[in-house]
């Protein structure tokens, strides 16, 4: 499925990278508000679902080559967050559903959970 399919199911709107929605294939997702957990556990290729909207979310996505970010709870990111995502070529979409609803809807449509590690050092 594409990021566009995901946006439709969630009735989510694109904040940037709209032109990539239909071409960006999405297989798995990782959901967290803790960026250190994203850095620890998000598998390569998974897209990020989060309720945080600051610029470090896009930095985290940049570091891990995360293909897209979905913001939940209708929280619009600040302008500099969107601006960095534009520069980095990372599409941002915004859903008004909360985290649990969002994950449930995406799980039901076949988006796979992904995890790179288990919690041990």
């Amino acid at each position, binding site marked *: 499925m594409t990021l566009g399919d995901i946006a439709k199911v969630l009735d989510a709107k694109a904040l940037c990278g709209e032109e990539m929605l239909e071409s960006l294939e999405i297989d798995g997702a990782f959901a967290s508000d803790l960026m*250190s957990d994203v*850095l620890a556990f998000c598998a390569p290729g998974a897209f990020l679902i989060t309720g945080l909207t600051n*610029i470090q979310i896009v930095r985290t996505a940049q570091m*891990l080559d995360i293909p897209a970010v979905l913001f939940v709870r209708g929280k619009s990111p600040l302008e500099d967050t969107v601006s960095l995502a534009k520069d980095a070529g990372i599409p941002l979409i915004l859903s008004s559903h909360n985290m649990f609803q969002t994950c449930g809807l995406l799980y039901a449509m076949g988006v796979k959970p992904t995890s790179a590690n288990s919690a041990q050092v």
Partner: protein
Amino acid sequence: MADPIHLEYEVAADDYQTAGTASNSVKETLKMLGIPTAISRRAAIITYEAEMNLVIHGGGGKIVANIDEKQVELMTIDEGPGIPNVDKAVQEGFTTAGDRAREMGFGAGMGLPNIKRNADIFEIFTEVGKGTTLRTVINLQ
């Protein structure tokens, strides 16, 4: 790779806006050098968490990257408060970070464990009141 590459960046204390810029630059350099994705991903995680540590705890400092055919060496050097108990600091969940770090999605006691997990060599030299040097190495061979 012909000659070893040496990179240095200054990181400002409490600057949550530009934090991550240096790490992204290190990552882009590794990509340009043709370092495999799995390695550059580990380097990106190490550098970014270490950069956030400089911002959150270290009172700012320096990021140094040395890249040659054998290894990627990543270091952070600060003159901050130092780490009183390193064993505790590398435990998952142990943190002394404040609300500002947490608002940004950090400060949950995962930084050093994340760095350790991704490094082949992980060393901390620290003295309370003087500062901390973190040295990590990822082997390329």
